[in-house]
């Protein structure tokens, strides 16, 4: 049984947490056994609070010498049987890219929190941005599909951290929690349920750890120390981990499965929310903190009788292609506000033929509801 119900570690009830504290509590609730990180604004409080909380729960946490070591040690811990997590922001996320590719290739469960800040480079450490969406998908060389979630509230940072662990263990693919400075540092009330559902990786002694009969299967995941004589490698390998670095068939088969195991299962992975879309002429497609402002704006325009709706993407990758096509066929225009120079908007354009209007703000500040309302008025 891969799914099990467990008690949340914190007693059920309401709490007042910052986003980063909620991520820590989500990791604790998900039974994260290993955390490694390196301080960086605005993710530092995750490392700090985990250092305290893991001492209480008996899990392992360590401050490594850099983000490369952090991601690599998480992968090592994951193969030793841990649910593993690291958290960082832009510069650290860039350093992690080679390790992320290794996790993809070796199908290692690992949760990576990216509390996005205004970039590029050191940019504005304490300011918000949403510029790492494409990096999450394409940042590592030879990029393969991964899963990336976009929480919009402190509540969701808690819930989606747990979800991230479940997804990473289930699909054996790195899962990114694309937080933003604005939510990481936000303080809000959240409700914690007394019971949560966790997915534990499936182990089947003696069964090939890197191949399945199906071309989109997820193999069971053994761990070190159980006499499995594992061969784990980031080089192209067969179902048993034997390196086949010049065989076109092995490469094609492995890469095909790494792709299909996410793309073919996207309907069961993707989550989204619709607001007032039924009769809408204009739809906002948004995610993360920007969805908060968007909803505020939509509600106000609705009060004026304007036919505006909104689609909030809770899952950014795999991309909700069919949902977008569907929305695009129902509305006249799609408006895509983003705290970057236009990343998700390109995906939206790919999957719809209706007019798509971007709005990009990269000044290190959140997009205000008024700004969105103004732009929508011009489009109505």
């Amino acid at each position, binding site marked *: 049984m891969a799914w099990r119900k467990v008690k949340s570690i914190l007693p059920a009830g309401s709490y007042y947490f910052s986003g980063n504290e909620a991520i820590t509590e989500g990791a604790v609730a998900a039974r994260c056994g290993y955390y490694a990180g390196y301080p960086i604004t605005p993710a530092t409080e995750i490392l700090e609070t985990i250092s305290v909380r893991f001492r209480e729960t008996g899990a392992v946490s360590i401050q490594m010498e850099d983000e490369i070591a952090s991601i690599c040690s998480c992968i090592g811990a994951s193969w030793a049987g841990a649910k593993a997590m690291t958290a960082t922001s832009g510069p650290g996320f860039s350093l992690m890219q080679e390790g992320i590719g290794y996790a993809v290739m070796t199908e290692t469960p690992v949760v990576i929190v990216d509390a996005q800040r205004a970039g590029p480079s050191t940019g504005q450490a304490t300011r918000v941005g949403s510029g790492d969406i494409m990096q999450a998908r394409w940042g590592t060389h030879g990029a393969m599909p991964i899963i990336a979630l976009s929480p919009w509230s402190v509540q969701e940072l808690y819930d989606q951290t747990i979800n991230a662990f479940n997804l990473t263990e289930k699909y054996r693919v790195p899962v990114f929690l694309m937080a933003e400075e604005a939510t990481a540092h936000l303080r809000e009330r959240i409700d914690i349920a007394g019971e949560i559902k966790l997915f534990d990786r499936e182990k089947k002694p003696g069964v090939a750890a890197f191949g399945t009969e199906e071309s989109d299967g997820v193999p069971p995941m053994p761990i070190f120390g159980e006499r499995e004589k594992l061969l784990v*490698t980031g080089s192209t390998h067969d179902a048993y981990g034997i390196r086949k670095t010049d065989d076109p068939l092995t490469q094609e088969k492995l890469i095909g499965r790494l792709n299909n195991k996410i793309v073919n299962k996207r309907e069961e992975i993707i989550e989204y929310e619709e607001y007032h879309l039924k009769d809408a002429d204009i739809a906002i497609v948004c995610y993360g903190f920007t969805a908060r402002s968007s909803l505020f704006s939509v509600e106000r325009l609705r009060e004026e009788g304007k036919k505006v709706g909104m689609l909030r993407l809770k899952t950014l990758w795999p991309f909700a292609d069919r949902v977008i096509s569907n929305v695009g066929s129902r509305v006249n225009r799609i408006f895509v506000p983003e705290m970057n120079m236009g990343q998700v908007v390109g995906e939206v354009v790919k999957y719809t033929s209706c007019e798509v209007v971007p709005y990009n703000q990269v000044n290190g500040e959140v997009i205000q509801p008024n700004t969105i309302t103004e732009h929508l008025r011009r489009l109505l």
Partner: protein
Amino acid sequence: MARDLKQYLRPGVTLSFCPGCGDRILLRLILRAIDELKIDIDDMLFVSGIGCAAWIPSPYFNADTLHTLHGRAIAFATGAKMFNPKLKTMVISGDGDLADIGGNHLIHAARRNIDLTVICANNMNYAMTGGQVCSTTPQGAFTQTTPQGNPYRPIDLCKLVQAAGATYVARYSVTQRFALINSVERALQTRGFSFIEALTPCPVQFGRRNQLGAPADMLKSLVGKCVMKEDAENLSSEELKGKIITGEFSDGCG
């Protein structure tokens, strides 16, 4: 007293080292030490980076192996060991891997004195990529990227790791077979960070460019170059020129 080390090799894979490569000898010496200590190889985890030496455990050892990224083996090993301290964890990789691109992880693992055994196969160059200069290349030596001779001094890895706080630090050549087997045994018995710099000849890349002769000549010249630490104390700096000091520099076994 030849022992059957085949039991430790993964069935179906054949060793593919170049003719005269010291890594093949090193592989056998490491297995000899494991055998002498009667360690169940299934209780061990072998972690390696990228390079020729990284192939020693993976795919050859019939045990849990983690073949990682260039330079990052120690970081991966740290995570596995921290989460499951029961895994007897050994890192085997090249000098470029552990000392150059991965040098920072080496320093910090030694500083943390984490219970890992690290064996650094020092062949004085980057063999896998065609024989480029390494931080361990002797000054003046010719490599693919130092056609005029290496302008820089080589790093003393043992001093570095010792200064960083490792419990056990030693350097031996694969020509000093019994000393090296013994050293691996001591490293495996050390609680805390143990580090062995194993000098291993690379005739195909390094030897050829430095006219060091056939594999047998390279081994012979290595024998001539290695001086035990205790003997070195009585030699003048003139006499020590071109020599390699071997022995145990920190002995945490007590």
